[in-house]
């Protein structure tokens, strides 16, 4: 081991400084024990980043280990930059989801943009060309002007970045709920396509090989971003704005092309994004995976400004940078490829046999850790878990005891209210700002149940979707976790795809609070149950904790990113009715005794302002059967359209089937009069799971397939092409919903609300926090 001494000018290591670095007393003692001495300022910075929740998963690792991660087609499970599954024909799909919540809460445009940039790099460092972006967003109520500022900033940030790099943004979800008011969630998912033989891992190998920094130069931006992401948001968060990185999608595009060329060239053995905790985490993680030592000289790192200290260089989160392990003697060839794309490449270190992680400043050692213990010895916690009695009490409330409002006498009123709830209403205002068709693979773009992308050179396509209903998870994390996976699976199945695998982004509050840790544990357990039943292993993901503001934690929101495979292009199925005369069927129709569950529904939240009751039950085996029956019917070519029944229940699903595609509306006549054991609102707006609305010209074949699969299925109506209404016959009366009103509620709501933001408001007007 080298003699490591504090650098001239380093601050003294005091308890206050340790606290500022987010380390507990015990963690600091653990560090001292590991080193056998007090750390230097530089070493403290390194550990602060690597042991942050964001990098170390110290509160979630033991829980994540319970998730299923294998299937014969999984080529790469958790632990790499992205998961990879084989789709046959020598091709594979790499995919991963990641959060950028805290930066987006403070600086929505750059926060969201760099979230997109980071996840893109995670995918192309696997050797995959990105083919699609998705994003899962949560905001407070749109009635709030700051929420509108955050929403429009995030959407613009996502669009500007993805559009410029030239990757289509094809799907996702946007949910509005007061629980996210101060702490929005911004999760970005990237999907890439690769030839199996091009798969590359971020594993440092080969003693004597060179470690190179490529791409953009290192500046002082984003220092301690990883630690910032690992604490609660507070009034002081705004002062941490400098911790937010600034993105440059143009450089990203060049880096994407250069990296793929580099991987193809065979000049390198490993490549990794310098993402959270920058050079520090990328180099330490690559060394740990390869079980080798590394030495890095910070004076060799190309910087944007002079006078940067080792601490700053190591912890900078400047964007669009990569760490590459080049084969010895190929450094010039690497440089040549980067130069072609007008980017820099510099040798900054070496893979060494000595089991040590060493950072030098010229010839002086400024940080040194034994072996890979920096990564492997980070603490791991299993804090107390206890359900909040308040939430348990909410769950115990019987929603049917909530009296109807007088307006509800006409269910058409209620349906319009729900269609104009921003969570349900069309999100075209947002996705019209995303280029969804570049690269010419998008068969179904934003607005469908899932997006579908053809796979060139094959007769296959992939379907992708993100999902999570945080309200369900809040009321019952076990059930909510199951539903998040099941709904994502149902959504991709509705397009004709077999659900294959998931990535997940666990957005929770502060895990040191027992109520939050309980949610995390239970939700992951529920996810695991559903993943096992549906045969969709977890190939990776991201954990974002401390999503709390002074007003409390966000709803626990484990976002699921699902990838499905469509074996034949002719099986691609759309959500909306498309042929007059088709029969309308409810597949998975759970029957009177199970249907009509109102707990945790959008109906209760929107119409009554209440979040209570048990969320809908979720029988994962039943979900599997329904998906199998649906796919069999689609493959038998007897399904004209298929749409998942989710937020807002059956009535909203039917309305969407009629009017979601403005180019091709249809009316429908529905008869639900024999569900006489249920109240109208339960039939129309209950959110019972495992249900799909189908249209078919051969209903008897669908019924036969369902019967054989042991799944209930009922014919409930007919598509009427020239009707100007959705008419639903109920046990008590008939409700007639003119399409013009449904259309207006669904399509005009969000544009109307967003028009309220003054177009040329100054930054200060829109962002009162920033003004100070």
């Amino acid at each position, binding site marked *: 081991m080298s003699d490591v001494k504090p650098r001239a000018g380093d601050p003294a290591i005091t308890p206050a400084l340790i606290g500022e670095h987010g380390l507990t007393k015990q963690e600091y003692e653990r560090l001292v024990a590991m080193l056998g001495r007090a750390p230097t300022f530089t070493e403290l910075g390194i550990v602060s980043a690597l042991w942050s929740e964001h990098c170390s998963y110290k509160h979630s690792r033991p829980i994540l280990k319970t998730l299923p991660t294998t299937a014969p087609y999984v080529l790469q499970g958790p632990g790499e930059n992205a998961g990879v599954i084989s789709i046959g024909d020598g091709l594979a799909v790499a995919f991963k989801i990641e959060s950028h919540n805290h930066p987006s809460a403070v600086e929505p445009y750059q926060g969201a943009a760099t979230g997109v940039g980071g996840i893109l790099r995670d995918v192309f460092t696997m050797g995959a060309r990105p083919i699609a972006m998705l994003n899962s967003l949560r905001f407070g109520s749109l009635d709030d002007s700051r929420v509108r500022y955050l929403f429009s900033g995030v959407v613009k940030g996502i669009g500007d970045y993805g559009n410029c790099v030239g990757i289509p943004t094809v799907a996702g979800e946007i949910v509005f709920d007061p629980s996210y008011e101060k702490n929005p969630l911004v999760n970005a998912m990237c999907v890439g396509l690769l030839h199996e033989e091009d798969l590359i891992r971020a594993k440092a190998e080969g003693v004597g090989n060179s470690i190179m920094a490529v791409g953009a130069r290192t500046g002082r931006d984003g220092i301690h971003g990883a630690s910032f992401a690992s604490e609660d948001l507070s009034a002081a968060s705004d002062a941490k704005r400098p911790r937010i990185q600034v993105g440059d999608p*143009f450089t990203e595009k*060049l880096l994407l092309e250069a990296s793929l060329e580099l991987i193809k060239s065979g000049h390198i053995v490993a490549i990794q994004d310098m993402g959270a905790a920058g050079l520090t985490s990328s180099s330490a993680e690559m060394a740990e995976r390869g079980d080798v030592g590394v030495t890095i000289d910070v004076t060799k790192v190309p910087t944007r400004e002079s006078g940067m200290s080792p601490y700053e260089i190591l912890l900078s989160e400047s964007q669009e940078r990569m760490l590459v392990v080049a084969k010895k003697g190929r450094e010039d060839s690497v440089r040549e490829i980067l130069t072609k794309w007008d980017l820099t490449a510099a040798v900054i270190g070496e893979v060494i046999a000595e089991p040590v992680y060493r950072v030098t400043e010229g010839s002086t050692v400024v940080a040194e850790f034994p072996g890979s213990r920096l990564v492997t010895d980070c603490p791991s916690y299993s804090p107390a878990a206890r359900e909040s009695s308040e939430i348990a009490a909410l769950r115990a409330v019987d929603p049917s005891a909530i009296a109807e409002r007088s307006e509800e006498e006409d269910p058409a009123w209620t349906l319009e209210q729900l269609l104009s709830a921003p969570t349900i209403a069309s999100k075209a205002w947002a996705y019209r*700002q995303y280029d969804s068709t570049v690269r010419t*693979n998008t068969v179904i773009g934003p607005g469908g149940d899932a997006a579908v992308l053809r796979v060139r050179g094959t007769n296959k396509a992939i379907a992708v979707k993100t999902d999570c209903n945080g309200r369900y998870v809040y009321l019952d994390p076990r059930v909510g976790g199951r539903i998040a996976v099941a709904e994502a699976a149902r959504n991709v199945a509705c397009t004709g795809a077999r659900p294959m695998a998931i990535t997940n982004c666990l957005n929770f509050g502060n895990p040191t609070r027992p109520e939050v840790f309980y949610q995390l544990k239970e939700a992951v357990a529920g996810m695991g149950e559903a993943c096992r039943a549906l045969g969709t292993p977890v190939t990776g993901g991201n954990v974002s904790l401390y999503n709390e503001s002074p007003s409390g934690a966000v709803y626990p929101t484990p976002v699921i990113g699902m990838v499905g495979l469509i074996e034949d292009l002719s099986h691609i199925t759309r959500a909306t009715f498309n042929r007059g005369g088709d029969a309308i069927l409810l597949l998975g129709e759970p029957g009177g005794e199970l249907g009509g569950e109102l707990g945790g529904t959008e109906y209760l939240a929107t119409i009554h302002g209440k979040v209570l009751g048990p969320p809908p039950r979720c029988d994962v085996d039943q979900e599997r059967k329904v998906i199998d029956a649906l796919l069999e019917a689609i493959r038998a070519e007897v399904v004209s359209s298929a749409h998942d029944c989710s937020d807002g229940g059956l009535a909203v699903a039917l309305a969407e089937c009629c009017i979601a595609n403005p180019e091709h509306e249809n009316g429908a006549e529905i008869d639900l009069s024999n569900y006489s054991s249920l109240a109208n609102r339960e039939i129309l707006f209950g959110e019972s799971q495992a249900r799909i609305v189908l249209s078919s010209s051969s209903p008897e074949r669908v019924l036969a397939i369902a019967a054989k699969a042991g799944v209930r299925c009922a014919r409930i109506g007919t598509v009427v092409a020239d009707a100007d209404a959705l008419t639903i016959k109920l046990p008590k009366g008939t409700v007639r919903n003119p399409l013009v009103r449904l259309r207006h509620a669904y399509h005009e709501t969000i544009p109307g609300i967003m028009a309220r933001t003054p177009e040329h408001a100054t930054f200060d007007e829109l962002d009162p926090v920033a003004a100070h």
Partner: protein
Amino acid sequence: MKFGVVTFPGSNCDYDAYQAITEILGEEATYLWHKDHDLQGSDVIILPGGFSYGDYLRAGAIARFSPIMHDVVAHAKAGGPVLAICNGFQIACEAGLLPGALMRNSHLQFVSAEVRIRVENDDTMFTNLYNRGEILRIPVAHGDGRYVASADVLDQLEAEGRVVFKYVDAGGATSADANPNGSERNIAGIISEAGNVLGLMPHPERACSPLLGSNDGVRLLESILARVAA
């Protein structure tokens, strides 16, 4: 026939154009690198969409100074066909191959949507397989697509039949609602005086497959083939 697709740093529709030429048209295509001075014997040049040089300074403003543009301009001046799509249209205007300019969309947002455009002139190198008045469904995806020029220039373009495409609604009217970016007179595409340079904001190369929603762009490419090969 050989198509040369220029790749500027930041081009991102070069691949789509290349695929449309080779897969759909079945013709030869080659990528032309922005730092080169070699059109590699291309008969037709495509300036593709994307964000050349990140659209920094102004869309197309830096790309026009790329080494390859010297040769593209010479090719155009000699009557060689140039198809300039989206960012390519912006570059062609900056390079003086087409009149007018493309400004920030009037609503200040990026717009990605399938739009309808009407064929205003079916007697061009790029539209001879369409019929005048025919309505095509083609995607747009841009932030700076508002075509502007002085009233004199606009009058002249219209009088000379050089406005090739206009944005229209389902009924075929050049309504304000049908105009995705606030372009003057709903103009979606124009040709040069000599008729050999077409600039348009919509992406015909993205409308080459019924699977993806529309193949209305195919005949634009076939028109070039029909006229140039003749």
